[in-house]
């Protein structure tokens, strides 16, 4: 049984099949890439897995405690609770909140405290809040954001916003982390740093990472397996070496030299 099994996943928007019959699986602690030309359906695929869209057809099965749970039609927050977290292609931070608040919000569903404790400020509330803060700071440290705790998210430079999104996703304590173009808008230098970081967190937290990215220096460096989509269909799957040589991928995506 794989950690995540996707069978025949299809999504139609009106007459447009954004995704058709995609089969996909993830094993524990893998680093998997998802590539494909613009409009191939990569983001749509993430949206289906994380509950933002409901699939038209097909199944998404997640292994939880030895059983398979069907994720189709579940609400995003339920899916997040089950261990899937994501970042967004167009950054969606809580812009008017501080860096640390962004992270603490993500920690809420797993380790936050109840409404009544908060209103009456019980000792438990203070304990919990302290814990949330400490956990957030620990996470932010990994991403070198610990000296920007109280900066508003909107005032961060682009690259740091992308990193904060990853921290926030990690804070939900996922089993699988989905990153949608984390290197977009970064310069090569920053991309190189990000590459290391992704490998590091994958090791440190023992999680599975799925990555959509157009920057091949990143994808080919970090991914163990790569899927390639075109027009909503899976056209290739394999190791970076295999993918780089795959004629279909070259024709549709990489472009000949």
């Amino acid at each position, binding site marked *: 049984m794989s950690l995540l099994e996707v069978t025949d996943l299809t999504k139609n928007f009106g007459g447009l099949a954004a995704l058709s019959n995609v089969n996909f699986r993830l094993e524990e602690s893998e680093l998997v890439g998802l590539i494909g030309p613009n409009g191939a359906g990569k983001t749509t695929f993430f949206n289906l897995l994380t509950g*933002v869209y409901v699939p038209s057809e097909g199944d998404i099965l997640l292994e939880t405690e030895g059983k398979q749970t069907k994720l189709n039609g579940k609400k995003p927050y339920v899916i997040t609770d089950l261990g899937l977290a994501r970042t967004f292609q167009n950054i*969606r931070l809580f812009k008017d909140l501080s860096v640390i608040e962004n992270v603490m919000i993500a920690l809420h569903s797993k380790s936050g405290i109840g409404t009544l404790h908060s209103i009456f400020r019980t000792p438990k509330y203070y304990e919990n809040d302290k814990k949330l803060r400490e956990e957030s700071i620990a996470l932010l440290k990994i991403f070198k954001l610990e000296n920007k705790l109280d900066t508003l998210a909107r005032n961060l430079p682009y690259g740091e916003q992308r990193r904060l999104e990853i921290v926030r996703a990690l804070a939900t304590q996922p089993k699988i982390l989905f990153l949608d173009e984390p290197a977009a808008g970064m310069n090569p230098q920053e991309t190189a740093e990000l590459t290391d970081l992704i490998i590091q967190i994958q090791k440190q937290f023992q999680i599975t990472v799925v990555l959509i990215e157009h920057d091949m220096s990143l994808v080919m460096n970090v991914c163990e397996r790569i899927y390639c989509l075109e027009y909503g269909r899976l056209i290739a799957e394999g190791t970076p070496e295999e993918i780089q040589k795959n004629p279909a991928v070259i024709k549709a995506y990489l472009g000949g030299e």
Partner: protein
Amino acid sequence: MESFIQQMVNGISLGSIYALIALGYTMVYGIIKLINFAHGDIYMVGAFIGYGMIQNVGLGLIPAIVISMLLCALLGVVIEKIAYRPLRGATRIAALITAIGVSYLLQNLMIYFMGPERRAFPTALETRIFSFGSIQVNSQQIVIIVTTIVLMLALQVIVKFTTMGKAMRAVSTDQDAAQLMGINVDNVISFTFIMGSALAGAAGVLVGIYYNSIDPLMGVTPGLKAFVAAVFGGIGIIPGAMLGGYLIGIIETMVSAYGGSMFKDAVVYLILILILIVKPSGILGKNVKEKV
């Protein structure tokens, strides 16, 4: 059955009034997302201008409507310049509060200068009643229904097919990008207000004639209903505003007709809420999920 048809006629003509006001409302609403609470009061001012033109100046109906439209358009532009433009970058609710301020101002200035009482509108259009069996329709109802439909079509053409319309729609989605296309955002917004306010002016005179009655607070209830109609039909959608207006008019009438006059407004709102729960972006609104 006959009384049902008669009630339908009643509902449609009441709905036409709401629709007529809602059209101008949704126009401004669609472009700058401002809940223009003062719209109902511009309509009131329009009615008073029409009153003055017919009663005191002695003009005929058509010139009175034209002058009322012109002056209301002017008023709309002035209000936009003074009260709304400085709030362009602010939140929508902040602009809403300003609109409420403008609404209070227009009402109370009118009370101050003209007195608070209701007055009879001069008869500028002879009422003719057409009977079909026991079903009656009068000439004013026909005028209003026809005007509403014509205006709706005209607006739709303007917004969908003219250059200005294109600019309006561009402004409504992204003002910065619109400027980068060479669109004069200020002019477009002024134009929107001109159109919306002129429509309100025309509606004011027509309703004055229809009910034979005007007063400084006459814009409050229809203004609110027009807002409800515009939202109900789908925000910023011109045929939606008309449809919303008609539906509210018909539902109100039917509730009264079938014994619910005691709970009329409650039932109307209840039905609205139920419909919105099923169609969360209004009757004609497309339920597009935000692309993430």
